């Protein structure tokens, strides 16, 4: 940054009174900065993608496709899909409930609650998995009781679902809370004063306004659910065909030096990740569009910014 901007002061001195001079950056600076940024992203982001696909096809299409069709791979795909089908709806429901409570009502301890919702983001995934082992594992607090009753949580599907839910818990709520706070509650109040009941308000007024944010949060939640490795790794026990999710299956193949197979399954995950970020940017674009629409309304309606309590007069 320094070296780039350091190039231009001298010729600028006599031009600095005209504000236009400040607007058009000199070409060398511009190109240097752009080249550095593009180079950095190319090496850190694009190169790994390319490497995955090259390695996947290193032994030809046949090997790659065979790796997908292997029973263990199929079992991993099924387990990942099952986890996705349980975790995403749960965390979406949670996100909606939390965002509704936080954005539409005043109550004590709200900011603490928001912070708590963020907590899983800052906890190491290994610890996220570990707390469930400490709770339900063989030597865990509830371990003896569970084994007496023949319930398996750790090294079984429930543990994987729990750990994944923990890790992906904040995604939907994080997207919705600021969005719904920004939208306020006037529309909902208007609906109530027009006689709408609770579900009618939610389904007819709130939901259409947050649909893009909801989609965005759900996509992020889904992506993380698919790819979660650390937490799942702790609770899964790596039982082939039973408790291996797709990322764990990639790990096993890799550790067994089946590189082509590992990269081939990984390339599936890369494809899903690419679809995710493309979907995400489409949703983002739509959301900005609808935000711009509403911002237009808001801006025209608020001649002066006012905050505070219900009384705005």
């Amino acid at each position, binding site marked *: 940054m320094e070296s780039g901007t350091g190039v231009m002061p001298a010729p600028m001195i006599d031009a600095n009174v005209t504000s236009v001079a400040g607007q058009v950056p000199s070409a060398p600076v511009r190109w240097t900065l752009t080249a550095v940024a593009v180079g950095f992203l190319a090496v850190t982001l694009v190169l790994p993608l390319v490497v995955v696909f090259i390695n996947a096809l290193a032994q030809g299409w046949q090997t790659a496709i065979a790796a997908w069709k292997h029973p263990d791979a199929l079992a991993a795909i099924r387990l990942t899909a099952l986890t996705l089908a349980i975790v995403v709806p749960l965390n979406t429901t949670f996100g909606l409930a939390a965002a509704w409570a936080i954005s539409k009502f005043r109550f004590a301890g709200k900011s603490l609650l928001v912070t708590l919702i963020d907590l899983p983001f800052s906890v190491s995934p290994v610890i996220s998995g570990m707390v469930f082992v400490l709770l339900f594992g063989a030597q865990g607090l509830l371990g003896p009781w569970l084994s007496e009753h023949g319930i398996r949580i750790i090294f079984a599907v429930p543990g994987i679902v729990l750990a994944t839910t923990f890790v992906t818990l904040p995604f939907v709520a994080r997207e919705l809370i600021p969005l719904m706070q920004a939208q306020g509650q*006037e*529309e909902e*109040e*208007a*609906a*109530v*004063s*027009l*006689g*709408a*009941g609770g579900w*009618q308000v939610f389904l*007819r*007024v709130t939901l*259409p*306004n947050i649909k893009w944010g909801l989609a965005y949060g759900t996509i992020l939640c889904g992506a993380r659910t698919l790819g979660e490795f650390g937490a799942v790794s702790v609770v899964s026990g790596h039982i082939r065909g039973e408790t291996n999710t797709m990322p764990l299956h990639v790990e096993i193949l890799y550790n067994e030096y089946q590189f082509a197979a590992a990269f081939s399954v990984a390339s599936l995950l890369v494809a899903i990740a690419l679809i995710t970020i493309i979907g995400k940017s489409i949703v983002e674009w739509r959301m900005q569009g609808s935000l711009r*629409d*509403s911002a*237009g*309304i*808001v801006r*025209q*309606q*608020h*001649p002066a910014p006012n905050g505070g*309590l*219900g*009384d*705005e*007069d």
Partner: protein
Amino acid sequence: MKIEVVDVTKTFGCHRALDGVTLQVDDGELVALLGPSGCGKTTLLRIIAGLETADQGEVLFDGENASGRHARERRVGFVFQHYALFRHMTVFGNVAFGLRVRPRRQRPGRAQIRQRVYELLRLVQLEEFAGSYPAQLSGGQRQRVALARALALQPRVLLLDEPFGALDAKVRQELRRWLRRLHDELHVTSVFVTHDQEEALEVADRVVVMNQGGIMQIGTPPDVFHNPASEFVMNFLGSVNVFHGRVEGGRAFLGPLQVDCSSDHPLARPARALVRPYNLDLDTRSNGRPCFLATVRHIHAAGPRVKVELTTEAGAFVEVDLAPERYQELNLSVGESVFVSARDVRVFVGDEPERSHRLEFQDGDSPTVMDDLRPGTEGRSG
């Protein structure tokens, strides 16, 4: 429908938004709640609508206590300050909303809803916009959609929160007159909140002037304008010249104004005299009436009235509002010294502007003493 508000108090945290407010709105009346920012008028409106709950006191609709009724059941039409239109619905969808969310048994048929919505859109002159979205409308149009939406359920009461607040001056003028006509047509009991005195005086049947969570005065527009019950009301309802001074030994010394007044207070007390700019007159020579000298500083002659800015010998700023004919007669110029005389001077005695004696002077020299002590929260309604 008649609305009664009885002794309503509301506190937000440690801010007292409403302090024992009592008010009655008669059937078919159009009442304005007028006051500065934060005076509690919006809170009062929201409590009437059931969108906010009073800490104490009741709201009665036609004598029936409505405090226990949810906003949904009050049959109140509420027009929000920023309209709160459903942005993802068309104008038609917005207006039809209240009808569509009714329980299935009371819900009108599709055709009926359609008919009713178009009826309302005709009323607000927005028929051709039925398919538009709120974002595609101008501020004034959105305002009218909000109104049509509130009217769809044939509310018993129409409540409007700063209905013209977000519009530009010209649209505001038009909508004001239009709302007045609409009210004369529909005769639904209506209450609207505003901080614009002109708007309140022009549109309402009665004006409720509020400040700091209490009612200062209730009365018809001419009543509150010509007989302000307190210094606050007089100040709020139009521009005034204020002269500071004291009342002592039967005389009031108020800057350049000195008038006899039979005050029974033996001790000197601070006082202020308030005069509206149009109640001051200028003369190039002394005409025998009590007057004071001032220098012309600036003249605004563009407009229906001529505004003259002056400074007194003590340096105080005085604004005078003259008829154009009078201005031409005087042939004033900047820097000239003139004699200022006052017609209707109101003297308020005491430290607290809201709790003051009121001494009334006629023509500046024959004071009629109105020595009634009026606590600020009680209105003098006419």
